């Protein structure tokens, strides 16, 4: 009896990698904390992308070496970073003017829940004993031109995260453009959620089963 390893869906790295394919040359991009941060390392060679971090830097570079490390040079996740040639520092007022004023092309964020209408919940479970903390998430979804979400398709207990309506407190209404899950790539459109790509060895029906709303299958042969 022989055993075979079959990949089912995308890993966290692969979700980031898949998302990175959609970051166009010349984009101004803000990456959220967690898996979204990994997107930068997978942007295809030859594309020049400028990373914004909302604490006041346009032109964020890679992690610093021990010699480069400066506790005054950090990203929005408070991790040490570097600045590229051609970077610029600015204060919070100007940084969020950049966000709110629709100057940033793409923001990649994680999600707790996404609704059929593109509503996003990613800052609070609404649990009464939790300390509420929002940071810049609401500003980013309200201001950035295109919002990409990278998320596991379901919760750890298997519950759908893509739902008719979010049950958690919203981060923003109708703000999500595209979802990259471990199972599929899904667009938020006026007609509804459209599945445009499947992860390896994942079927449309399987994704539909893990999703709280009806998906439109853009891959279906007419």
């Amino acid at each position: 009896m022989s055993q075979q390893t079959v990949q089912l869906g995308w890993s966290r790295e692969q979700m980031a990698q898949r998302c990175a394919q959609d970051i166009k040359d010349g984009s101004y991009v803000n990456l959220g904390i967690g898996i979204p941060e990994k997107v930068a390392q997978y942007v295809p060679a030859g594309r020049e992308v400028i990373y914004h971090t909302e604490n006041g830097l346009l032109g964020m570079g890679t992690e610093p070496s021990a010699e480069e490390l400066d506790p005054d040079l950090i990203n929005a996740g408070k991790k040490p970073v570097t600045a590229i040639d051609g970077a610029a520092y600015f204060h919070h007022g100007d940084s969020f003017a950049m966000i709110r004023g629709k100057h940033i092309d793409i923001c990649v964020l994680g999600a707790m829940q996404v609704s059929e209408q593109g509503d996003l919940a990613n800052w609070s479970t609404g649990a009464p004993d939790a300390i509420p903390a929002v940071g810049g998430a609401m500003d980013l979804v309200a201001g950035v031109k295109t919002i990409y979400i990278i998320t596991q398709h379901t919760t750890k207990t298997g519950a759908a995260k893509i739902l008719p309506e979010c049950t958690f407190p919203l981060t923003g209404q109708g703000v999500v453009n595209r979802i990259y899950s471990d199972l599929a790539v899904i667009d938020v459109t006026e007609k509804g959620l459209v599945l445009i790509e499947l992860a390896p060895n994942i079927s449309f029906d399987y994704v539909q089963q893990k999703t709280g709303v009806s998906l439109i299958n853009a891959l279906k042969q007419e």
Partner: protein
Amino acid sequence: MIDKRVTSCAAAVAKIKDGDTVMIGGFGEAGSPIELIHALIDHGAKNLTVVNNNTGSGRVGLAALIENGQVAKMICSYPRTANSTVFPELYHAGKIELELVPQGTLAERIRAGGAGVPAFYTPTSVGTPLAAGKESRTFEEQEYVMERAIKADFALIQAKQADRYGNLTFNKTARNFAPIMAMAATHTLVQTNEMVELGEIDPENVITPGIFVNQIVEVSNPLQESTLVKEGVVYP
């Protein structure tokens, strides 16, 4: 690759359309992007709404753009100059519209346009004719008027240094409206005295980050408006 350089002012202004709103930097001649304005005159787009603090001097630059009949409306704070009759004549003839805005309100409306703020309240102009027809509101026993953001299709500005990302520095008080207009326009066109390599502008000293800039043309020795006016030059 990000490279916002273009080779001529004509190329930079090529996409300006009839009816567009165009912000033009400068306070008097300081910071006036005169080569870009002249390129816009050559280009010929008409029925423009122009946002500038003033209405130009002599018969060059902004005054020449107005004289050439390309401007349907000026949004500005101080449309009088000692040395130009271009605007007054068209204004008296009813051929150009004027929206008069206090200088600081003009600046804040432009900044709001760039910052995604559709409206704000200000104490400026309360009780004056320039508050007429505007909503007013009391906060903590003081009256304020509500002012709306201004956005533009294009901004034409002048910089001292620029790199290919569009990071800019300015020279002294020539900075004036340029950084906020760069934020408030969909397309920001820059004429710069000098193109520099990435990294030559210290990230601490960038005044306008490149994200607010779309196209840059190097004009090493720009015309000086006051000199042209003194010489009685008429453009075109």
